[in-house]
């Protein structure tokens, strides 16, 4: 899930990360990008973290998403 919406990593436990999508929390694997850190914004597909998104761009995306869905 969440190919179009970046989520923020709030916790990492081993090879699993907890990712917050504006209140909705999901888990994803970190095996592909093991250097991700808490606070990073990421894109998840196939239950794996596939890509890091620069924080500024991610925040802008989430702002637009929130406005669209108000």
């Amino acid at each position: 899930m969440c190919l179009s919406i970046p989520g923020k990593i709030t916790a990492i436990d081993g090879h699993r990360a907890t990712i917050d999508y504006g209140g909705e929390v999901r888990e994803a694997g970190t095996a592909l990008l093991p250097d991700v850190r808490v606070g990073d914004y990421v894109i998840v597909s196939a239950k794996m973290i596939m890509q890091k998104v620069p924080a500024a761009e991610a925040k802008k995306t989430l702002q637009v998403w929130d406005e669209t869905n108000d």
Partner: protein
Amino acid sequence: MISATRYFLRYAFSCAQVLRESGEMTQQEYDKVADAAMDDKELPLPELERLFPAAFRRLRSIAEREGKPTYDEQAVKEYFPRDHNGFIDAGDGTYGEAPAWFCELCKVKRLEVLRTKVVDDKLFLRVEQNRWVQSPFFNAITGDIVVVHHHYAVELVE
């Protein structure tokens, strides 16, 4: 040889995830698209037209520009590898408001496989420093050139 609609679906499948997340496609429709793409099955052209209206609107505009009454099978096959990026660069439709990182993700690109990894029996390919794609349709090795769309490798360049 793969049919035009199956070829189109391989590329369009990753768009379906975005359409589902934005509410433009139901979960049931998404599951149908995903099953067809992964199992390499046909979805009838009218159904593809209904599920991916933006792509077919663009196909109609290409046909009009070329003085044709409508698009043909070859145009459907060539849409993603030939025409898709141009519409993104032009800011067509939702691309006009989408952030730059997302537009780049939507572009069809030929990229070199930098590394491979199998996780839970799925093959993943590293194609950029911080970007991996899944390769559900073919095996690839480091050094191969693949065509990617979103987080999927769609074609292996011979």
